[in-house]
């Protein structure tokens, strides 16, 4: 399983904040870009959306491992 999380405006547009995505035995390990498409979030990850894997920024083509946590982060507005 891979835990996928959405935050702020992305979560509200999608209507969910968290999903567990199974990895079928024998299938290739997905990347964040694959999960974005698989979960019907869009065709490609928009440039303003950042990806985090296991709570650190990552690229959208990083190969994921079972147990990983992937988050899609809309533009940050802190401070």
């Amino acid at each position, binding site marked *: 399983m891979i835990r996928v*999380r959405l*935050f*702020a*405006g992305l979560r*509200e547009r999608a209507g969910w904040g968290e999903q567990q995505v199974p990895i079928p035995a024998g299938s290739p390990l997905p990347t964040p870009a694959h999960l974005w498409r698989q979960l019907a979030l869009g065709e490609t990850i928009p440039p*303003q959306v950042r990806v*985090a894997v296991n*709570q*650190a*920024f990552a690229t959208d083509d990083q190969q994921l491992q079972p147990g990983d946590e992937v*988050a899609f*982060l*809309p*533009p*940050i*507005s*802190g*401070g």
Partner: protein
Amino acid sequence: MRWPSCPRSAAAERVLHLHPARFDPLAALAEWQQGLTAAGAEAPAAEAHFIGRVRGRTASGAPLEALELEHYPGMTEAQIERIAATITSRHGLLAVRVDHRVGRVLPGEAIVLVAVAADRRGPAQRGGQELLEALKHEAPFWKREWSGGLGTWVEGNTAF
């Protein structure tokens, strides 16, 4: 020697507080300063402080009822720690403190405190400014402005 127990780069103390309720930035600063001089240590020669408060208007100029701050528990803290460690090392800072609100914040309330200590004003001011800008762009926080009963996510930051 200001930090007798370890080399300066390793001794730089970094303190982070995420506050789910209102906090007093001046009390936080006083507590931090007391900590720096605990056990008889000499006070740092230079400190730079920034306090950010919620303005009473939205980005479009409407009266703001409240600002809601969402964060990514775990990653937000880890990311601030990574940012603070990098900037501490780059500028040779002696100590760093970051306080940030989460949840519902009212106009006039403090939303962020950044405090850094250094041996000179240049590293203190540059390090403090760099830390604040990194927080605004690299630490996962998201603001939603509430006005007229409607919430609008803010995408991006206010002008420098």
